């Protein structure tokens, strides 16, 4: 039994077995081997296992998403059979007497560099495929093989930290809790945990080398504690807590179907934030009046090329139809900063939070933007859609966006494709946008305040930097004043303003926000009924 403390980012208790996720980019260690032939045999066996994994992935993708997406796994299988690639690995083991993991990793780097240096965008993007197959081989070799989400039982996910592209691939019904060594309270792990209503601990000083998948653990998000290999008694105690929590949730269920109004009769739009089509179930389950922030990045993450207009259209349409006339606010692409995607070729930046991201990518690469806008305008026919644009700092950007929307609209008219122009708003998440919010309010239909980024830019605190968590004061007066300015600017021009950042879900501030005149709060689905309770008691 071993008790470790961490910082809870979502309360709750879980008991179950651990699955350790090892990062794909952990450095591979070089070591000398005595028997090169045995090491070569290990490589050949690993290639065979990797081929079998890819075949299963191919079959699964073929069944679920169709041939076009499945072909990627077929290509990976073919690459793993390549004579030059395999010979290079064998050769390095024989001549340098190194371990298989190292030989695979170096060969992968060499081949991937070769493709990265070609003057052909398509071939450059293949360097990610080489990295992918080499990473798969290394994971097979060192035993940290890919998780087979389909066949596994629900488990406690233990990792160093989780990247958005890792979380996007997870089967969320199989996750009991998250426990990570790194990450901050505003990291994606934290956001995901709040969305899914599962306990999560970050900053837990664990040695991942000594923790094995299959070990039992108790995660207590109230005490901020994880117990490895717990005693029978501790498990019983945890089970009792889980039951108690479930009863509290049951009580909140009585608020389903009730209106979100204060005692003096003011109605608040209480919406939910989600990040994938599958999350719509959480929205309905928790009886949110709509979706206030639908992060469209899920369509772009965890894949090797841009999603087509048709793929996007189908995804948006599905959400709009499922929400059956309730409001759905989709935020356009917010890639960059902490959300990196290989095929965008964004490159490394010294200061990514202030870098090439979100609307800045969309305005300089309008083809990417237009594809998304076309899909959105076409999907708007199927429900109550609003679109909002992230990271705005100027009126000129809004003008440019509106010009592009006009072009997209003209194209759809010319092709006689049915579409509808949705309500359009902007995210207020930079201090600049706050300062010119009156001018912006004239141009757009609504404001949605993204408090996470607004706080980071106003306080000059990187939200991914866990060392700064002690300086990070989400209740800073500057932020509350800014929210007031934004709400007043919107109302002056007859527009509405809401909050979709984490701050909107903080029950300590709900009353203040309502008094300020905030019209809409969009929060993690698990928070909807709690806030409804708070607002009805005001």
């Amino acid at each position, binding site marked *: 039994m071993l008790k470790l403390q961490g910082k809870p980012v979502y309360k709750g208790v879980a008991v179950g077995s651990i699955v350790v996720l090892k990062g794909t980019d952990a450095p591979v260690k070089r070591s000398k081997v005595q028997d090169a032939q045995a090491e070569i045999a290990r490589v050949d066996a690993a290639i065979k296992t990797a081929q079998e994994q890819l075949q299963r992935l191919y079959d699964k993708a073929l069944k679920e998403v169709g041939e076009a997406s499945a*072909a990627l796994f*077929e*290509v990976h*299988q*073919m*690459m793993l*059979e*390549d*004579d*030059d*690639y395999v010979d290079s690995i064998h050769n390095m083991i024989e001549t340098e007497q190194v371990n298989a993991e190292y030989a695979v990793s170096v060969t992968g780097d060499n*081949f991937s560099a*070769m*493709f990265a240096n*070609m*003057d*052909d965008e*398509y*071939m450059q993007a*293949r360097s990610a*495929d*080489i990295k992918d197959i080499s990473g798969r081989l290394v994971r097979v070799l060192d035993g940290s093989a890919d998780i087979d989400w389909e066949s596994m039982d629900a488990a406690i996910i233990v990792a160093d930290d989780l990247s958005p592209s890792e979380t996007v691939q997870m089967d969320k019904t199989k996750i009991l809790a998250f426990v990570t060594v790194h990450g901050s309270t505003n990291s994606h792990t934290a956001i995901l945990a709040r969305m899914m209503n599962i306990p999560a601990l970050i900053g837990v000083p664990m040695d991942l080398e000594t923790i094995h998948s299959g070990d039992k653990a108790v995660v207590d998000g109230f005490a901020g504690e994880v117990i490895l290999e717990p005693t029978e008694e501790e498990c019983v105690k945890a089970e009792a807590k889980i039951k108690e929590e479930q009863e509290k949730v049951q009580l909140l269920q009585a608020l389903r179907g009730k209106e979100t109004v204060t005692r003096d009769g003011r109605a608040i739009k209480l919406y939910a934030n989600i990040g994938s089509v599958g999350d719509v179930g959480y929205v309905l389950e928790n009886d949110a009046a709509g979706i206030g922030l639908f992060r469209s990045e899920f369509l772009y993450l965890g894949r090797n090329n841009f999603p087509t207009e048709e793929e996007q259209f189908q995804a948006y349409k599905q959400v709009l139809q499922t929400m059956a006339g309730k409001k759905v606010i989709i935020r356009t692409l917010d890639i960059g900063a902490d959300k990196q995607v290989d095929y965008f070729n964004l490159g490394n930046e010294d200061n990514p939070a202030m870098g090439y991201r979100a609307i800045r990518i969309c305005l300089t690469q309008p083809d990417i933007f237009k594809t998304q806008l076309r899909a959105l305008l076409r999907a708007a026919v199927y429900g109550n859609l609003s679109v909002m644009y992230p990271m705005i700092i100027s009126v000129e950007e809004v003008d440019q966006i509106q010009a592009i929307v006009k072009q997209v609209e003209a194209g759809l008219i010319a092709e006689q494709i049915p579409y509808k122009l949705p309500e359009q708003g902007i995210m207020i998440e930079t201090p600049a946008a706050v300062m010119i919010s009156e001018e912006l309010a004239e141009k757009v239909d609504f404001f949605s305040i993204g408090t996470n980024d607004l706080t980071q830019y106003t306080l000059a605190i990187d939200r991914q930097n866990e060392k700064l968590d002690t300086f990070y004061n989400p209740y800073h007066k500057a932020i509350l004043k800014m929210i007031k300015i934004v709400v007043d600017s919107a109302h002056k021009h007859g527009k509405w303003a809401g909050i979709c950042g984490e701050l909107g879900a903080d029950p300590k501030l709900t009353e203040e926000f309502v008094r300020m005149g905030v019209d809409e709060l969009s929060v993690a689905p698990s928070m909807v009924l709690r806030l409804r309770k708070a607002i009805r008691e005001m």
Partner: protein
Amino acid sequence: MKAFDYVIKDEIGIHARPAGLLVKEAKKFESTITLKANGKSAAATKLMAIMSMGVKSGQTVTVEAEGADEEAASAGMQAFFEENL
């Protein structure tokens, strides 16, 4: 030796999937099959070497087959290119 020229019609050029299928096809024959384009050459049985030639749409590839079954190999490759590239 048997040889033929072929102009690539596929929009992306010789991309990963057809290159992989090409390798499978080439391995069916005993003859040594070589692709030449852009001043580079690659054995038709080596996927990454073929891809790294970077053959684009509209470019010409010369396919050479040499060996016991070169007639069949050349005909087989020609049929493959017509159908896939």
